[in-house]
């Protein structure tokens, strides 16, 4: 696990598999004696298709009714890591939580595996829940990470126009 300078953030993109034990690993790496709350989130690759990206509707229709066979993730890595760092800064400013992990898989990910893990650790649960929710929502909306659903004879890029910063008024 790589951490930033203060030793309390773990922000990572990795090509190697993530298993559910990552929740224990991240908790143990982040928590200090004052922490009474840990909130973890795992995103898994699933068989049911998501929303096709604009322009991919016809390709998605071609695969309608079929199960997704695997997922493929691609990232602009330095920009994605910088985006995760900005999100961690915002979590500290908004919720006072400075022990956060966001780990995202890249490359081909078979069905049922973990594609993203988020852990937020804080003295009390309200802040930890808010921090974890913000981390996953903002990562999905803003990080330059792309997802394709692979079918037997083709693939479909998924998603929506990126949001370029925090939502106004938050």
């Amino acid at each position: 696990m790589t951490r930033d300078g203060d030793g309390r953030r773990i922000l990572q993109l990795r090509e190697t598999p993530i298993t559910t034990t990552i929740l224990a690993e991240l908790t143990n790496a982040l928590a200090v004696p004052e922490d009474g709350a840990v909130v973890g989130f795992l995103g898994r690759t699933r068989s049911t298709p998501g929303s096709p990206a604009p322009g991919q509707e016809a390709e998605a229709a071609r695969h309608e009714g079929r199960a997704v066979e695997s997922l493929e993730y691609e990232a602009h890595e330095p920009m994605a890591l910088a985006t995760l760092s900005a999100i961690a800064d915002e979590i500290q400013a908004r919720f006072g939580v400075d022990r956060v992990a966001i780990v995202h898989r890249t490359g081909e990910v078979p069905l049922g595996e973990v594609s993203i893990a988020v852990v937020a650790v804080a003295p009390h649960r309200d802040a930890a829940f808010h921090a974890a929710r913000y981390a996953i929502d903002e990562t999905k909306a803003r990080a330059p990470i792309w997802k394709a659903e692979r079918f037997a004879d083709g693939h479909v890029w998924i998603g929506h126009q990126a949001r370029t910063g925090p939502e106004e008024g938050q």
Partner: protein
Amino acid sequence: VAIRVRVRLFAIQRELAGTREVSLELPDDADVEAAWVALVARHPVLAPGRPSVRFARNGEYAEATTGLSDGDEVAMIPPVSGGAGVESGARA
């Protein structure tokens, strides 16, 4: 006077253009939009993506009107895996 910028393409745009990277020569007062226009002139297949693309200059999101300098990296950012869709609150 001209500047040279490196345009990076990802995901659907990388596939449509058939390349990860394009080097462009632009006027020295060029902005990000000028880079997009020059890119589309070379790869017209990308043109329909304009309404949903975002731009980044040197690793940070930028506006279409952001000015460019010699040696800049411009990344074209097609729709991302979550994105700001209206139903985003209900998606995993």
